[in-house]
């Protein structure tokens, strides 16, 4: 019974923890402009994150080494440091976007301007990173993030023509009002949002935090194979809701409030209250995950003791990195940069950084000296290679498309 409970808990937190500010904003924005004609990208992206999260979790369980240990080992100090700089620039940008997202969610609840809430939010995030147990952090925000299921109820309540929705999703075409480059720009953005590198840094380091061994492979796989795809379904519900309400009205999404509009339209005040809880939990949980990912990756490159499985005084440099990056994140937000814009750029730059993360994982997951019998099978390798090509294409296309479309205008 206890076993079933812990497995169910893991899956539920994986669903709730999947969606972050990048998924929220990008899916809502894309739904409002392109309907469901880009839903296929979410499906492709989710399969990709499933393939590589499973690999990185398996490597962590068998060898005890997290993703940036592998990057340093296989790429050496030079290329490893370049990789660290690129990955941390993107993860740091995502961290800023998540803290901003928490502040925006709190603004919607309290009507206090979000800039006044940013320092308080930063402090709250740091306190959680400093004091709260790893498992508590993961479970609480993951479970509360399930409140986003309200988007599913909203879509159902709006009583859409399911046939036409399915038709949009399965026979994608560029809507007449949008250009082809813009369509592909948002395809790359959605792909980046679904496959954000920090998810793998966090997932593999989390496996080490929770002392996974070979015995935990089943649980880890179940979380990935069930939790992530259901998280992807939540993403598609968000896009569907804005496609149904905002697209016909010609409203584009540039605020977090607009992401919630379809829910209040369909379910009224109760609905929007639940959606706001979901926004808060999803962004706060992801703020903790991205913050930790920065600390994990830097520490793993240099070999410092990291993790919340030891007391802070035993992982001093790791906690210094967490503190400094939280302060830096708050400082950037206080320049009054728009958090939604930061989010939009963070998902595109995520796409640029994808090959940096996924290549070393694929190499190590194939090393029999390391992995023994648990090396990649044919399926994992086949998919891994296909996705390596896909992420490279997305990475190469991202910046030219951004310039060509003036960031999707």
């Amino acid at each position: 019974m206890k076993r079933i409970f812990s497995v169910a808990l893991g899956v539920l937190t994986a669903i709730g923890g999947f969606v972050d500010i990048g998924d929220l904003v990008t899916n809502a924005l894309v739904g409002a402009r392109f309907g469901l004609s880009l839903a296929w990208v979410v499906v492709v992206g989710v399969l990709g994150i499933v393939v590589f999260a499973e690999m990185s979790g398996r490597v962590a369980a068998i060898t005890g080494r997290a993703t940036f240990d592998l990057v340093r080992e296989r790429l050496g100090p030079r290329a490893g440091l370049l990789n660290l700089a690129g990955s941390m620039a993107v993860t740091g940008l995502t961290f800023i976007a998540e803290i901003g997202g928490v502040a925006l969610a709190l603004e919607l609840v309290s009507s206090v301007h979000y800039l006044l809430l940013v320092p308080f939010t930063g402090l709250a995030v740091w306190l959680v990173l400093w004091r709260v147990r790893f498992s508590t952090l993961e479970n609480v925000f993951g479970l509360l993030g399930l409140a986003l299921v309200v988007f599913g109820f909203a879509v159902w309540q709006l009583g859409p023509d399911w046939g036409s929705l399915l038709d949009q999703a399965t026979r994608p075409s560029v809507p007449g009002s949008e250009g082809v480059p813009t369509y592909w720009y948002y395809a790359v953005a959605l792909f980046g949002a679904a496959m954000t590198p920090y998810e793998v840094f966090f997932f593999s380091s989390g496996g080490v935090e929770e002392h996974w061994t070979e015995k935990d492979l089943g649980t880890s796989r179940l979380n990935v194979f069930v939790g992530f795809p259901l998280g992807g379904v939540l993403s598609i519900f968000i896009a569907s809701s804005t496609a149904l309400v905002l697209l016909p009205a010609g409203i584009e999404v540039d605020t977090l409030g607009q992401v919630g509009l379809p829910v209040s339209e369909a379910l009224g005040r109760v609905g929007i209250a639940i959606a706001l809880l979901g926004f808060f939990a999803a962004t706060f949980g992801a703020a903790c995950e991205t913050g930790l990912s920065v600390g994990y990756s830097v520490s793993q490159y240099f070999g410092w003791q990291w993790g919340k499985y030891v007391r802070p005084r035993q992982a001093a440099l790791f906690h210094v990195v967490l503190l400094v990056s939280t302060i830096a994140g708050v400082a950037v937000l206080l320049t009054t940069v728009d958090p939604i814009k930061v989010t939009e750029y963070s998902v595109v730059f995520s796409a640029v950084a994808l090959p940096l993360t996924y290549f070393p994982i694929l190499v190590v997951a194939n090393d029999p000296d390391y992995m023994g019998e648990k090396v990649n099978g044919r399926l994992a390798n086949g998919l891994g290679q296909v996705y390596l090509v896909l992420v490279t294409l997305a990475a190469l296309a991202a910046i030219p498309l951004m310039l060509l479309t003036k960031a999707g205008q």
Partner: protein
Amino acid sequence: MSGRPVNPRDPAEPGRGGRRMDAALRLLDHQLVDRDGRLCGKVDDLELERRDDGTLVVTAVLTGPGALGPRLPGVLGRATVAVWRRLHGDAEPGASRIPFERVAGIDSAVRLTMSRAEVPTYGLERWARDNVVEKLPGAGNAPE
């Protein structure tokens, strides 16, 4: 430095000079773990010695900025070494050295027979602990 790769899980091969392995792949840039399971740096470089019969043997693991700096490119590498020299007590500090006799085992990490406080590069971590982390409220009793 290269030999045929050896399964790190195998017990050490008996014979002259210990184990043959691909040191660049199996040692370099790997994690150092102390006798209590704490992480304590990377194998930033290796000290090699040529035996009379021409074989190379690893005599020490080098760790810390003094070893990492020379492997980084250009200005960054020189700056790393310069900062390391400035902060180090000795006038001409070499890279921090852990004799290979203190290596207890090699799997996905390099396991040492010493505590991390004895690793020469523990200074930065100790400084951060004493001057930053210990000063923050709740450092003493934060949960694991």
